[in-house]
């Protein structure tokens, strides 16, 4: 089997390694025109037009790139193609999921979202990992299973692609809050609280935006949050920790240190904040606090005090 690849980053590297473990033939569209030495080993770079004959394409790009990449792919793909993306974000301002954006830009209707605890470091070492393929199309799930599942990688299915995309994106906000708390060295109790309440909040958000609440408690929500918040933590976790060190959310410093990932995170928080106004009864306290931090209205230390002083809520 031959699959097409577009993208870069940690999850992309993990994906390439997993495909390597099943000896799947992979070709890459080098949309960023990276130097050959920067491309993954063993992956052939081909012109985009060759993707016309490759029915399964994996995409792992930043949110800013999704629409343009999809539009280019759309010029060379058909209704037969299936696109599996790994992007844990929502479109800025519109809050559209990545699969919605892909659908708008490409002719095919067949999409999937691959996510879960598949850390680059673990996968490259051949350690066990797992993922969930969220899609409404069983044939995509079957195909993805063929090319990814090995003795060290388990794959789960979920038909709630919308819920999975929303949960995986929301995790990143909770992870940032966990990063703030970690830097204060306040012990595991507060981390556990953030994990648990973060999941509950995520569930409400997912249901409000049209996903299934229970998806939150699967690999796209719970498992991603666990791995994002565990030391050394995801880049989002580290962004929170970095902000806490200076007790101020300095946008320039975040971008300087974390690059596009930092900007991506701040855009995500800004975009999600729309929901705070839209539906106040959702009680998205962690998101609200993160938004206050990112918008500079509250320092990280103050934010934590704010969270601890909230009235008693139902668990």
């Amino acid at each position, binding site marked *: 089997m031959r699959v097409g690849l577009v993208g870069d980053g940690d999850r992309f590297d993990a994906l390439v390694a997993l495909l390597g473990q099943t000896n799947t033939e992979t070709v890459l569209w080098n949309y960023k025109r990276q130097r050959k030495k920067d491309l993954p080993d063993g992956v052939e770079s081909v012109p985009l037009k060759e993707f016309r004959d490759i*029915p*399964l394409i994996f995409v792992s790009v930043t949110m800013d790139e999704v629409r343009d990449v999809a*539009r280019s792919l*759309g*010029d060379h793909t*058909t*209704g*037969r193609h*299936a696109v599996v993306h790994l992007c844990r974000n929502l479109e800025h301002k519109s809050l559209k999921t990545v699969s919605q954006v892909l*659908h*708008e*830009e*490409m*002719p*095919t*209707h*067949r999409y999937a979202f691959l996510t879960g605890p598949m850390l680059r470091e673990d996968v490259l070492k051949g350690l066990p990992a797992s993922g969930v393929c969220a899609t*409404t*199309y*069983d*044939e*995509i799930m*079957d*195909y993805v299973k063929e090319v990814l599942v090995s003795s060290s990688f388990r794959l789960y299915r979920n038909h709630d692609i919308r819920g999975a995309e929303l949960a995986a994106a929301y995790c990143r906000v909770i992870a940032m809050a966990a990063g703030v708390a970690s830097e204060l060295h306040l012990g595991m109790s507060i981390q556990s609280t953030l994990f648990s309440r973060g999941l509950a909040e995520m569930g409400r958000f997912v249901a409000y935006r049209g996903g299934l609440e229970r998806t939150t408690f699967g690999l796209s929500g719970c498992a991603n949050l666990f791995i994002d918040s565990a030391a050394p933590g995801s880049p989002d976790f580290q962004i929170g920790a970095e902000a806490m060190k200076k007790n101020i959310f300095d946008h320039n410093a975040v971008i300087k240190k974390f690059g596009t990932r930092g900007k991506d995170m701040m855009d995500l928080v800004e975009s999600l904040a729309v929901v705070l106004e839209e539906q106040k009864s959702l009680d998205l306290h962690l998101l609200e606090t993160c938004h206050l931090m990112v918008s500079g209205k509250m320092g990280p230390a103050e934010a934590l005090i704010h969270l601890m002083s909230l009235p008693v809520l139902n668990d």
Partner: protein
Amino acid sequence: MTEAPLFRFNSERPYLVNEVTRRVYNEFLTASRQSEANALEYVLNETAYVEIDRLRTEQGPEEEIRDRGWWKSMARSLTHLSEDQKRDILRDLIESYTDDTAGKFDPQVFKLATGALPLGLSFLFRAQDVGVIPGVNNSFREGIRQLRNLGDRVVVEGHTDTMRKLAEIGTLVVVPTHSSNMDSIVMGWSLEHAGLPPVTYGAGKNLFTNPLTSFFMHNLGAYKVDRRIKHNVYKSILKSYSQVLLERGYHSLFFPGGTRCRSNIVESNLKLGLLGTAVSAYISNLEKGQNRPIFICPATINYNLVLEGESLIREHLRRSGRARYFLPDDEFNQISTIVRFVMNTVRMDSTTIIRYGQPMDVFGNRVEGDGESYDDRGRRIDATDFVRSLSTGDIVHDTQRDREYTRYTGKRIGESFVKNTVLVSSLVVAYALFELIRHRYPKLDVYQLMRLNFDETIPWHELRSTVGELVSEIRRLADLEKVHLAPLVANGSIDEIVDSGISTLTMYHVPAAVEYVPSGVRVNHTNLLYFYGNRVRTFDLDARELVSRALE
């Protein structure tokens, strides 16, 4: 027009019945061989159980395929029957149901119904009935004259040019909104008026037994759908019949809302069963080497007044559990009400606007007059690629995939319904009046407002001001192509819109939904105002804000 597939229906009817019988029989036989749970004994027993239960409470005047005694006797004998005997029973049953379902098409009746008598509605009248009907406008002769010109008052607009071209290339599946039993007749007339071929369609069995409509139903290509029958054998027959018709190139019409919309809000929760047969038929034809496309053509039927408005909204408000498909004594079963409706509404400048939306392929992609599909970015795409297997590239049926496609197409149809809704003055005024009443009683919910038996008068200045605010909002939506407006609502002055809306709302219902009084408009029927205003509520306007602004 003589080339329209429906004109060959009668000669193909035996083939259609045989083919559907063969397919459904094979489907159940194959399933029985694959799993013990699907054994013929269980299938027949389940079918009998459902029918015995139904016939205990529903023994209407309609002729039943088998009576309750037969079902009981068959169920009792099942354990003693051989497999061959069970197969024979199943096959006979399927054949009987299919034969009962399949319609008839009489070209002479079609010519008469669409040519000589606009809308065919004159068939609904018998001279001896009209003279004794209370509530009919006195000027009967004038009414009849206007009735003959009714065609001028029904506006057909939208993508009819595209549809005419597509009818030459492939098979049309017209999917309109549904709010009245008049819809199938009105749609049939509008297609003919727009130079489009006649369609076959599934009509409720009550329409075949209703003396007003049975003549049309039995002769204009309709097939019978008995929504009271719930067993799987019957459901398979209906789907298979629809699929075979589409495979054979018969232009068809489904009401994807399934039943008349009780609330009058533009339907969004669509039933996808029959729509799914379009995908299956398309794939089956491709497998046979016939690339005859199937085009989905959404349409909205926009009435100034709805014949069954009162009972529909009553049912909507009363409904707490499952939908009832059949209103036992609604206005459509009362000749006098229909006559009153027609005679009193023919005086309007336009009675109905039928708007055809952008056609799409069976996967929800936009289709242009060349028959080609286009994606959201305007790229021309090959529709056959959508049914190719991801792994092999072969054209295949894939039940799960095709269900997803149908779900998506249903979503696009729902979007088209909203976008192609045409707001007329009666809807706009009804919305404004109801929201003004709601503003007066902010602590009452909708149901409490309906139950109130009050005498409420809305001053003219409040009504004009609220309609003014509302019209500004919906004109803005129209500019964004999110809705369409009738010419008067799009270009008329507020006074003209108010006058037209009030005049329409006083026309048919007894007592009238509203009436003129010197100080303003007296409201008699809040439920009717709610019903008509619901069409506007589809667009999620902030009514409270709108009324507050108007009354400032």
